[in-house]
């Protein structure tokens, strides 16, 4: 069990209270979070997994033993430490004037050089898995941000003004919901194309890790599309919160003293909707990570450094090299389990009263 009691340390608490102000959480909410965290081993495990994933993603160039894109065909399909791979070499030689074919069975052993083995092109699996965390988390977080920004804006407006605007939104949300997010994402990415953005890697720039890739590829289309196909969930939650808040006395009072709609929405409605939105956003990061890996698996991705992409590659070598498809999948499961555990923690502590919406493939 990872010891995470440092989160309760004064310094961390200071950070927590600053976060609290930024998100306008009440002291009671923060106390609930802390009590629930202290009580639940699963919450600690979840936070531990996410902190690990974030560190791995942030320091990928420093942690990866090899350049994840370097191919080495001499060392392809090396098994992970502790495993062997059987291979058959066919040679032919002349014996008494006739050609004899000899099948020789040999063993490929693992090396400490590649602790998790290599893929079909001899690329280091450990390094690829480490870099894959970057893609997953960046797509998950930015995609959720786009979905939340768009969805919450639309939902708050609809819920606050209600009437025609609301009707129009809810009907378009129904239409959106009729398309499974994976189907819509596949269609959009497939039809728009997989544009990507290359971002210089700060570690390489600073000369700290000269052997690593100089740029990191962000799958631009994918990020935008996964955000766009998931906004409806945020719109629904924000709308129902806005609907319930707008009938409160203090909103009527604010309106009576002449506060502008904009002021009321940003100062009163939004802060009161923030808890369920935070919980939903957590679940959505998990859903979007799963969605990204599915898109990459189907070949609709702008980057090759993705867990889903590696699983698709490894699938072709399933009978000879099981680890190529297995390892990235384990990484996905661990990350998503971590996020879901944190989501459960937040839900138990904040009790926003929403069902398990969102979901993944």
């Amino acid at each position, binding site marked *: 069990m990872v010891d995470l009691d440092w989160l309760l340390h004064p310094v961390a608490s200071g950070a927590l209270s600053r976060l609290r102000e930024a998100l306008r959480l009440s002291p009671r909410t923060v106390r609930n979070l802390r009590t629930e965290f202290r009580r639940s081993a699963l919450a600690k495990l979840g936070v531990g997994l996410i902190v690990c994933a974030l560190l791995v993603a942030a320091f990928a160039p420093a942690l990866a033993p090899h350049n994840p894109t370097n191919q080495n065909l001499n060392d392809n399909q090396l098994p992970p430490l502790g495993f062997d791979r059987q291979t058959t070499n066919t040679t032919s030689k002349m014996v008494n004037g006739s050609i004899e074919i000899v099948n020789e069975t040999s063993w490929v052993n693992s090396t400490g050089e590649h602790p998790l083995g290599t893929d079909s092109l001899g690329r280091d699996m450990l390094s690829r898995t480490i870099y894959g965390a970057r893609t997953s988390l960046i797509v998950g977080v930015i995609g959720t941000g786009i979905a939340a920004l768009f969805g919450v804006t639309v939902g708050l407006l609809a819920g606050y003004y209600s009437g025609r605007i609301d009707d129009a939104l809810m*009907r*378009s949300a*129904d*239409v959106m*919901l*009729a*398309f*499974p*997010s*994976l*189907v819509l994402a*596949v*269609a*959009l990415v*497939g*039809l*728009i*194309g997989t544009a990507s953005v290359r971002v210089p890697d700060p570690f390489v720039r600073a000369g700290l890790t000269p052997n690593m890739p100089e740029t990191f590829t962000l799958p631009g289309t994918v990020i935008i599309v996964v955000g766009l196909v998931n906004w409806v969930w945020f719109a629904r939650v924000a709308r129902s919160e806005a609907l319930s808040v707008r009938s409160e006395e203090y909103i009527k009072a604010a309106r009576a003293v002449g506060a502008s709609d904009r002021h009321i929405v940003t100062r009163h409605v939004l802060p009161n909707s923030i808890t369920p939105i935070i919980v939903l956003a957590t679940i959505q990061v*998990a859903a979007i990570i*799963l969605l990204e*890996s*599915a898109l990459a*698996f*189907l070949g609709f991705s702008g980057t090759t450094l993705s867990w*889903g992409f590696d*699983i698709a590659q*490894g*699938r072709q070598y*399933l*009978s000879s090299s*099981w680890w190529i*498809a*297995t390892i*990235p*999948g384990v990484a*996905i*499961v661990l990350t*998503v*389990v971590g996020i*879901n*555990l944190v989501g459960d923690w937040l839900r138990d502590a904040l009790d926003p009263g929403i*069902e*398990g*919406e969102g*979901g*993944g*493939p």
Partner: protein
Amino acid sequence: MTTVSLGRFLLKRAVQGVFVIWGVVTVVFLLRFITPGDPVTFIAPLDASQELRRRIAAELGLNRPIYVQYLDYLAGLLQGDMGYSYISNTEASARVFARLPATVELAVAATVVAVALSIPLGVVSATRRHEPVDYGATLFSLVGISTPNFWLGIMLVLLLAVQFGLFPTSQRGTGFLPAVAGTVGQFDPGLVVRLAVELRGEALLAYLGKLPLVTWLAHITLPAVTLGTYFTALITRLTRSGMLDELGKSYIRASRAKGLPESLVRYKHALRNTLAPVITVVGLQLGTLIGGAVITEAVFAWPGLGTELIRAINLRDWPLIQGSLIVIGAGFVVVNTLVDALQAYLDPRVVAD
């Protein structure tokens, strides 16, 4: 709840559903105009002249104003016409509906697996709280909702098909109905009894293994488990928390106070009330099931609508893309309406609201 109000409720839902389907058709139609690339470039040869391109566009009706194309498309749809596939030169609707049964079969099989496993598991988990079965179910549902199903499918293939050879790795045998018909036609109970009596186990297994229904089962097991696991986990989770919630309510105590047997308290009262909200969430998650079917089909080379859609997208075969998306969207709306009806049946308050 009277029958009249239930009927009116369902009618209202059905009318709403029709409007949503219309919205689906419109969005799918507009998709062609908001995504980059002219369909003609994908159809015409690379060295085609401007004149040839114009002729192709005219032949496909792509040169007409957008509202004419839209009305024309709507009119066609109402007669079941989705246009001709650009690539294979068959009717798009024929291709779509030829592929639909495989997808429906997969989705239904996965749902059956999920419902049959998850609801009992959730109930047991809630009624035996803090016992090993509860911890097991909680762990399973946590990992189940966190596992990408395509990876799960590959792992199942790796273990059960590649390592142990228990199941075929991919493809679909015959459909369910032909398999049933074939089995009924060729099944010979006398032979089975004779082989069993003579203790010829291997021959018996070989005979049974060749029955179409068994082949069907062998082909569908891994895809159905792959697609169903997420839902099994999700419904287990929801059933468990819902049951715990219901069992803590006062009416449960009141039911016990009047002497009702525990099974009646649990199943007729608590479980029934748990199922209504569970069904709501499952209805909302149906899209995930269909999306999951698309990727499961890709893993197992299952000849369904999903593989067809991906192929059509890669080839920009617009009539086929539109047809598949409309069938998927409309199918979701129809099933969702049925789910609403089931929920109204289970919980009369839904109609009252």
